[in-house]
């Protein structure tokens, strides 16, 4: 400050001019305990009033050494660790790992296993998107859609609990099969769930998606232009929100996804420029509808078979390596597994979508307001367990 204490006490009254007023930026640490960073992310914000000049994300608070652990347990032992990577999309994570090891060993699973895997993966996608959509409502300040979403998410978790005994971390996708066959009555219950779930999506649309305040808040912030999306190699709903039709389920089908009839929703730029937070959010809502379609088809065609038919007695792949990617609720997840011919993997590397998404956060956060930072983090739908691993 240009006036000192002495000056203030002196006889002559100091004259303040606008030029004397000092402007300074403030560093605001958002997180790691902030409720809206979706886990333990710390964002260092350089703010000028409410405007954020620079946002620097700091990750690593949830580092659990997944990849090193994987080098010390046998192949099936990695599956629970894979479950814990993206803990709101566990089924998709363990599925990717199981598929990679199967590719390494050259195992072909039977049709029933494939169909069940599609079923659980899509149910998981619904559960994960419900969490994302619901908490996005909270981020913007609407609490009610969150609880409506969670009510239905509980139903999915109930289905999973019935299936394998766990509600969040399942250890369900084994190498060469799945741990349990579908219990009696499960198919009917799933069909009932999908039928009533479409009404929930309508409800979310009414309450949140097309709410004037909500669209005003989200449709003009966090713009990811298509070129930027591609150059940062983002994937999943975030990429599709920018209007690019790319889905591994269509591009490199696994588990027989090529036999299902479904659309890939992309951002529509209905309320603002393409690639906004609203586009990403709405792609998730539309994807839930597509998932319902896939689940209906899978339930209709469910073939007979033994889910343990191809489970090997000992998972001991020959020397070699395998890389496989799938479309998880969050985007393109890939595992790279290297075998030295032993019982324990030589190296397991996870390519997690959220980590990649976080890398462009500073680009889209620049120049937005503090409230928009929350909106952007929410729309990227990050899970810190997957970023930090």
């Amino acid at each position, binding site marked *: 400050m240009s006036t000192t204490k002495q000056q203030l006490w002196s006889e002559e009254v100091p004259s303040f001019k606008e030029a004397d007023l000092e402007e300074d930026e403030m560093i605001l640490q958002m997180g790691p305990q902030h409720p809206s960073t979706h886990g333990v992310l710390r964002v260092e914000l350089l703010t000028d009033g*409410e405007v954020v000049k620079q946002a620097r994300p700091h990750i690593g608070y949830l580092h659990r050494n997944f990849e090193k652990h994987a080098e010390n347990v046998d192949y099936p032992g990695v599956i629970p660790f894979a479950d814990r990577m993206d803990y709101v999309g566990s089924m998709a994570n363990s599925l990717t790992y199981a598929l990679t090891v199967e590719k390494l060993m050259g195992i072909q699973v039977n049709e029933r296993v494939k169909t069940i895997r599609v079923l659980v993966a899509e149910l998981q996608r619904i559960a994960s998107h419900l969490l994302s959509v619901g908490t996005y409502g909270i981020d*913007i300040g609407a609490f*009610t859609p969150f609880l409506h979403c969670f009510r239905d998410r509980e139903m999915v978790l109930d289905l999973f609990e019935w299936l394998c005994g766990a509600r969040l971390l399942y250890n369900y996708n084994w190498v060469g099969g799945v741990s349990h066959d579908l219990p009696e009555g499960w198919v009917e219950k799933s069909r009932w769930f999908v039928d009533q779930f479409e009404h929930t999506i309508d409800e979310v649309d009414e309450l949140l998606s097309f709410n004037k305040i909500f669209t005003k808040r989200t449709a003009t912030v966090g713009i990811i232009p298509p070129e930027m999306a591609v150059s940062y190699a983002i994937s999943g709903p975030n990429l599709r929100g920018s209007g690019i039709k790319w889905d591994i389920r269509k591009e490199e089908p696994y588990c027989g996804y090529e036999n299902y009839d479904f659309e890939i929703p992309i951002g529509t730029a209905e309320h603002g420029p393409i690639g906004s937070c609203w586009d990403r959010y709405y792609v998730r809502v539309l994807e839930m509808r597509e998932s319902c379609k896939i689940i209906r088809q899978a339930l209709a065609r469910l073939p007979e078979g033994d889910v343990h038919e191809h489970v090997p007695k000992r998972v001991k792949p020959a020397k070699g390596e395998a890389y496989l990617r799938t479309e998880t609720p969050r985007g393109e997840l890939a595992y790279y597994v290297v075998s030295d011919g032993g019982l324990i993997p030589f190296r397991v590397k996870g390519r997690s979508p959220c980590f990649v998404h976080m890398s462009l956060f500073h680009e889209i956060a620049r120049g937005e307001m503090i409230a928009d930072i929350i909106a952007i983090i929410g729309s990227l739908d990050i899970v810190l367990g997957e970023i930090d691993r």
Partner: protein
Amino acid sequence: MITQARRIEMKILPVISVAVVLGAAGLIAFIAALPVIAALLSSLIDANLPEAIRPVAKRGLGVAAVVGFLSLFPIFAIWFERKVAAHTQDRLGPMRVGWHGVLQSFADGIKLLFKEDIIPAEGDAILFRLAPYLVVAGAFAAFAVLPWGDGLVVSDLDIGVLYIVAIGSFAAIGILMAGWASNNKYSLFGGMRSAAQLVSYEIPTVLTLLVVVVQVGSLNLQDIVAAQQGGLFNWFVFRMYGINAIAFVVFFICGLAETNRTPFDLPEAESELVAGFHTEYSGMRFAFFFLAEYGSMFLVSGLAVVLFLGGWQGVLASQIVPGPLSFMTKTLFLVFVQMWLRWTLPRLRVDQLMAMCWKYLIPIAFALLVVAGFLALPN
């Protein structure tokens, strides 16, 4: 297994619940009988006390009644809000403590009373302690001129409207103080947002108040109520070719903003500022902010009722329903509308909030005032 404590609870809670529900019924009866009781007390004072202290005693009784009501109202309002929220969200809300959770607020209140009072080490301790009192004082003091019934008002000020507007600004100072004294960047943001918001929204509030004032020609709230006598269609909201109806909506929106309720709850935005100005508060000081919030919710609703919905006047031309009961019913309905909005709408961003005030509400309010002024001109 049922523990000993739970067994005692199971015996006691139904009894207290019944007592509370009966108490609530009694309270409604009491409110209905308020004019009679007030008249009785007034005559008692006239008969037994020397003339010099009669007005003081009457005022004192009024103040005691209002403060008593305001201390009890949040207990009901918090329970009610939780129930409204729960049923909006397809769940039940508090159900365990007493019948449908009616004792939940008491349990919460007792918990808050026993909480440690934490003052941030680097904060400004004096301002930190002072801030909640200012906020509560601002919210409570305005009730002095709120008319509950015919002649039922603590202080029948001739400048009632002006007084409410002036005293309402107390809250802004208190909140700014709380934000600054917490020595927390989030709280500071909350405080700054609140100051900007309250000062901005004061303007359309006053302008819409004036729309009514030019029609009555008085700032006295009792006069305003008296001008709406004669049944439903004499309420101001139904008069003046819809101008008053628009003014009512504008006033209610501004009221939401002044009480920091969703969609204008930016100062305490849970998901951005982590409770904003009261992040650092705990225990009873924290509770004071809630007392103030529910107090001002009631105040804003009450003021809207007085100005636009006929105050303590009934729907019919003749006063069948006792005035206070009529007033309470309408006010509680508006309180319910506030809660309903809170649990339905998302939150605005700070620049959108300002844009809404300066670009829409103030011009609309100005236009309404001009038109109303012309129409109200004596021929």
